[in-house]
């Protein structure tokens, strides 16, 4: 696996070097904190400890850290074995390697077994400019269809930290997308804390509801600002847990706005858009929905700003999608 340099992994809808406040390695902070009180927490990586923010744990608790080398299948098997032995393993690698190389191992030894294994996966979506081989654009889809698997796509440093606590407090398999390095702060610490399976309404507006996960939350908020300037009032619902999906929060958002946009740093198939449509169909909610995400294409190499524009993930794309959703309202209501 080729390691990808740190420090420029998140664009959050603005330029890479913008002066946004950041927290360094929020995942590691939470993990080390929990592990200090819980001897059952063990860490693993597959030759990417340095690049998945688990190195602070490895340094603090060397006897509880296992590096299996470049072997993602064995990473999952050893983690599952440690879970069988009563431990709470936290295994890190990149999203592409965890979900594509070790899929069968996660399916059987974590999901089917209900093992208390946490898979923490770096480089989600287009958060690296390294290129398609390292960009996890389909990981949420893979993990979401697995029975028993909890799937989390945190949006910023605060969410990442709190989601780590929540994942470790939960007894069962969890797939947690990792935001690493200097992670921007988007949320307000005084706002609602991360809760497994619960969405959080970050912005209220009655014209359109934007359902966002991961790094697209920041872009959704930027889009809401842009829309407000042109008189369109947008709600932003942070759906950090894709599974279990917060159906009641979605129902409320749909009934309050009458038009939705989903925004995900992922393919529009199998991830947040799909989960939202499935939830709507099950709830009998019928409103226009526009999708922001990669549309049947792989990512490419380049700066994160370039990638966001090229692959349709920028704040402007979210705002455009919101306007389309609003425009569709009249057609829908007339049916």
């Amino acid at each position, binding site marked *: 696996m080729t390691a990808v340099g740190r420090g420029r992994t998140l664009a959050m809808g603005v330029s890479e070097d913008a002066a946004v406040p950041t927290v360094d390695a929020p995942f590691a902070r939470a993990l080390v904190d929990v592990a200090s009180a819980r001897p059952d927490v063990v860490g693993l990586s597959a030759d990417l400890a340095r690049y998945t923010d688990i190195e602070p744990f490895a340094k603090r608790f060397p006897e509880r850290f296992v590096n*299996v080398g470049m*072997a993602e299948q*064995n990473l999952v098997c*050893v983690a*599952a*074995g*440690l879970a*069988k*032995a009563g431990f709470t393993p936290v295994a890190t690698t990149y999203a592409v390697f965890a979900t594509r190389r070790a899929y069968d191992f996660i399916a059987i030894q974590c999901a089917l077994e209900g093992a208390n294994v946490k898979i923490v996966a770096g480089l989600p979506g287009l958060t690296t400019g390294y290129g398609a081989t390292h960009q996890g654009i389909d990981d949420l889809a893979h993990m979401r269809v697995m029975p028993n698997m909890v799937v989390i796509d945190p949006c910023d440093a605060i969410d990442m930290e709190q989601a780590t606590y929540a994942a470790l407090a939960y007894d069962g398999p969890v797939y947690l997308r990792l935001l690493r390095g200097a992670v921007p702060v988007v949320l307000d610490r005084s706002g609602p804390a991360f809760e497994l399976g619960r969405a959080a309404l970050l912005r209220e507006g009655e014209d359109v509801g934007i359902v966002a996960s991961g790094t697209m939350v920041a872009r959704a908020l930027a889009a809401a600002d842009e829309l407000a300037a042109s008189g369109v009032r947008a709600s932003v619902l942070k759906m950090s847990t894709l599974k279990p999906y917060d159906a009641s929060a979605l129902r409320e958002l749909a009934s309050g706005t009458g038009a939705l946009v989903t925004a995900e740093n992922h393919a529009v198939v199998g991830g947040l858009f799909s989960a939202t449509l499935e939830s709507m169909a099950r709830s009998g909610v019928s409103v226009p929905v526009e999708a922001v995400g990669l549309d049947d294409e792989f990512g490419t190499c380049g700066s994160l700003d370039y990638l966001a524009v090229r692959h349709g993930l920028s704040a402007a794309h979210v705002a455009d999608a919101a306007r389309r959703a609003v425009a569709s309202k009249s057609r829908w209501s007339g049916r």
Partner: protein
Amino acid sequence: MTATQPEVAGPLHARAKQIRRKVLAMASGRGQGYVGQGLAIADVLAVLYFHEMRLRPDDPQWPDRDRFVLSTGHYSIALFAALAEAGVIAESELASYGDDGSRLEMSSMSTTPGVEVTGGSLGHGLGIAAGIALGGALSGRDYRVFNLLSDGELQEGSTWEAAMFAGDRRIARLTALVDVNRTQADGDLVLEVEPVTSKFESFGWWATDADGNDPDALVAALDAARAVGDRPTVVVCHTRLGFGVPLVMERERAHFVRVADDEWAVARRQLEELA
């Protein structure tokens, strides 16, 4: 034999025969099953369950028990027979093998008492066994972990990821048993796996060959493995599909042996005629 081993322990040949009887009963009751593998592996399971492993049959979750990790889930027919013979599950339950709603599934699931892991997708077992052994050492327990895998399974790359890891970390309480019957789903071994012992040795393991249908040879090999102490060990068990029942042994060597309805009685008689 330590005090923690089952009191019911007796001559291993007799135990193996009892396991074979149960395998035939389960397969004939179902009309099918992995009878070739079940008969072939009976001696290995007899030696593990009645000589080698530290177990409390009435307490399958005893924290200090030795762990048996079955990679080859389709060998479940023999594992269930061994678990019934050891008293972990009831003999009467064996008749439900493969039935709708039975917990004795065609491929072993960890939801069955005494079954440590969910096998069946090959190439998982050795890594899990390494993880359990690592966990045992980390929690200060001295239990050992035994993984039964197959020669065909050596073609899975993940097996070698695990072998490299266990050898490098010198996971001494891990013992693998490779069932070499030279048969896989498509017939005779599709890819040559020999020499197995030297492959493992080059990965840092202690390795030996043994006749997998000779309990005494298996005991000698496992005794030697136990004495190693500083690295993982593997016993390469050369078995014959259908061992103990000529009717099954003489069938064309196949992963899934077909036995006609009227042949089961013959098979049972042949097993009883065996010394």
